[in-house]
């Protein structure tokens, strides 16, 4: 198994190389470059930008230098925007108090994953055990709506509801930690002074207040699909003879569903956890754009809009890695839940 794991990891290297070449070429195809807008200010400022960024060099020289930097010193280049190293820009900027993009990405992605499963499991089971009833239909309709609403629309809709309908901004209190009046805000991760304040219960509660809309938006992206998978697996298992046997033994329906059916229905679903992983990271991108979340995806989106070449490249490699790791995780979980599967 270890050999298989190592081999799979080694396969990712040429894969990532191919991905990086394609992405680099695609970026070069777009008209103009990072410095082009500076032509509107002056030729000298444009020329200085070109010299600083090196984008006048041939694409192979640029690409070669970038790859060599990674191989020789794990240097992913620098941001054209502000000269910061790419790794700082994408992952590690920030302090312990404010958190950094990587931490927030992990918190949001895994938080949303847990939330989506926590909501999807009972809903899927409920739909399966009420097959054909209006309750089943209700869950299905809910699923379709969830599947149809674009994430950005849901995000802005939640903010609108909080501000206009619930008027959350009118809920204020005197913060002992900040020594000032604080009102409930929307978007971002903290209200005002909490961004740089030291960690405390008060700050944590403020974070939770800002996290839940983000988690809901990201979780909604996959919630409907998971509900449908759970329902489908449960229906398959519930029609198995051993479930009928359990019922005929006089076991309560709750024991039949939870102890006998659910356990077996979950096995194939566990293997799918890995596939949901990249999907959650993807959902975080949309939420970061609207909800102003300081995540890796937020930094990546800004770089993408501005043609910040090396930040975009490194970001895409990161997301590719997530995809690869997600697939790998799925394969291993599949072997773990199904002893008949063995990798060589």
């Amino acid at each position, binding site marked *: 198994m270890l050999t298989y794991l190592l081999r799979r990891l080694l396969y990712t290297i040429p894969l990532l190389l191919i991905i990086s070449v394609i992405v680099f070429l695609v970026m070069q195809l*777009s*008209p*103009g*470059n990072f410095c*082009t*807008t*500076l*032509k*509107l*200010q*002056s*030729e*000298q*400022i444009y020329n*200085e*930008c070109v010299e*600083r960024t090196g984008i006048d060099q041939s694409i192979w020289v640029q690409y070669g230098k970038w790859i060599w930097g990674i191989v020789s010193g794990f240097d992913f280049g620098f941001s054209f*925007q*502000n*000269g*910061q190293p790419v790794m*700082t*820009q994408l992952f590690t*900027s*920030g*302090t312990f108090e*404010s958190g950094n*993009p990587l931490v927030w990405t992990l918190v949001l992605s895994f938080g949303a994953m847990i939330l989506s499963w926590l909501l999807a499991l009972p809903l899927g089971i409920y739909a399966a055990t009420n097959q054909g009833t209006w309750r089943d239909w209700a869950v299905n309709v809910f699923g379709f709506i969830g599947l149809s609403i674009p994430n950005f629309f849901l995000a*802005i809709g939640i*903010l*609108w509801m909080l*501000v206009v309908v619930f*008027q*959350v*901004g*009118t809920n204020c209190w005197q913060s002992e930690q900040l020594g*000032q009046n604080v*009102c409930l*805000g*929307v*978007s*971002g*991760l903290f*209200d*005002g*002074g909490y*961004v*740089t304040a030291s960690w405390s219960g008060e700050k944590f509660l403020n974070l939770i207040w800002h996290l839940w809309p983000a988690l809901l938006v990201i979780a909604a992206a996959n919630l409907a699909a998971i509900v449908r998978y759970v329902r489908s697996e449960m229906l398959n298992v519930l029609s198995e003879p051993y479930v009928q046997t359990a019922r005929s033994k006089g076991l309560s329906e709750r024991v039949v569903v939870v102890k006998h059916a659910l356990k077996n229905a979950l096995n194939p679903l566990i293997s799918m956890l890995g596939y949901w992983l990249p999907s959650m990271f993807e959902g975080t991108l949309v939420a970061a*754009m*609207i*909800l*102003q*979340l*300081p*995540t890796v995806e*937020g*930094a990546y989106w*800004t770089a993408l*809009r501005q*043609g910040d070449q090396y930040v975009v490249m490194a970001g895409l490699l990161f997301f590719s890695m997530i995809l690869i790791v997600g697939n790998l995780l799925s394969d291993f979980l599949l072997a773990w839940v199904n002893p008949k599967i063995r990798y060589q």
Partner: protein
Amino acid sequence: MKKQLLTLLLVCVVGLGLLGGSVDLQAQPGSPFVVPAVQMQDGFGQQGGSVTIDNIDNPKTFNPITQNEASSSAITSLMHEALIDTTGQATLAQSLDIAPNQTTVTIRLREGSSFSDGEPMTANDVVFTLNNIIFNPTISSTLKDAWRVSGTFPRVTALDSLTVEIASPVSFSGLLSAIASTPILPQHLLQDDVDNGNFNAAWGIGTSPNEIAGTGPFRLKSFVAGQQVALERNPFYGKVDENGTQLPYLNEIILPVVADDNVRLLRFSNGQTEIYPPRPEDVPVLRQQSAQGVAVSVQEAGTVDMNVIAFNQDSADANLQTLFRDVRFRQAVSFATNRQGMISANLNSLGEARFGPGISPLFWIGDDANFPSFQFDLNQASALLDEIGLATGSDGMRQFADGSPVEFTLLTVQGSTVLTNDAVLFANDLGRIGVQVNVRPLDLNAVIDQLLGSLPPQFDAVRITINGGDGDPNLLRSVFESTGSLHFWKFSDGFGAGVADWQNEVDDLLEQQAQSLDLNQRANLLADFQVLVAENQPVIFLYNAQGLQTFREDRVGNFSGTVENATLLNPEILFRK
């Protein structure tokens, strides 16, 4: 997604008149500058409190010289000040003496002026800022253009620790404007960066706050990428109110990073921010919130920015080139443009039609009764096209003499609703006089490439906004002079074609006003310039938006507006109620 506008930026300086003699700038030696009470419409404030204003993006730098976009200038403008400001007031300068030959300005600095780290500001810092930074060929800055006269820079010398002499090779009307636009930087913090050739990267966003100092009312407290910038009051700031209270009044200004327009509006409505520069479509919603303390202020439309449609007068298509160079065609198009329609559709009727170039209000004559006007008139437009000889075909569309249709492509920027809507309305209007316009939204970089990427330019026509800063006439030279670097519609002597007589006249007028130190004479020259440009419509001037500001009047006092939706005016007198 952040709205992208194709905006041609000019450096922000103003049209101050340069007159011989001494300019009194509250010359009490050793005393701080006292802000007159008349400027405080809500009276004296009290120290303390904070104000929150969303910033449209992460700042890219804290360096006020190399910054070139709004998310950075919104912050650096609060941290740095020039020797004098645009109204002639000065925190740092005590007096200005202009020599009789009117080429030399001697500036006496205010005794006791300090940077925000407590170090004194001296004449050496002024000399360092100008000689070593602004005039340094290896340092890129849009401020260079404001200082350059006759192809060179003035000579700057420290006469003693508090006196600086700035000597221009020729008389230069923009000298005071240049002084007013240049922040003074601390030599003790930046000398090494200049010596090492590292100034362009100095004061990047990773710099520790205690390594950055300025002379403005606020200094950097903290920056968390993707979250917020916090500024705190500069305890060494050199202005006081008439009660002797040291300014600024506010303890902090917080600038959270919020890129989405709609989210910024929601946050303001939720009470999270105190000041919000709204879009025209936000105004009805915000007016409904007046009961919650929201004040919407609508000011006169600016006289500086230029929303225009430009034609490539060096088009490779011979028919189009001849047509675009014909003033009758441009006038016909100007008559056929329904400016009020655009203002209604895009600005929620909060704008004013414009027929001539943007310029500082000091010189603006665009609303004079005799100023050339091109009110919407399709009959007059059609008559001019008939006069050119563009016949109407059986399909109602105009044709060139060779039978080919009069048709061109109008570029706009993909993602900019305003530019694209304007372009579509314009195409519709021109269709009514038989001219086929094909609107083509392109990526911003692609549009710029077509405008400035090659000679001659590749486009047919473009909808663009020229942002004139504070409208200093000298900055218009790069746009309206035939050889200007931003004269993107060309038909200049760079391509072997003769320059039109009126364009030669424009070149002369702009050169003369640059060397004129007599304010009246300068105003006359610039009036002639505006009329000449309006008559010839080298670009089709469209409209300007009215200044829109919203703020919470129950929380903020002495708010007097923002510039370009980002930079706070008079932040030092703003106070928290």
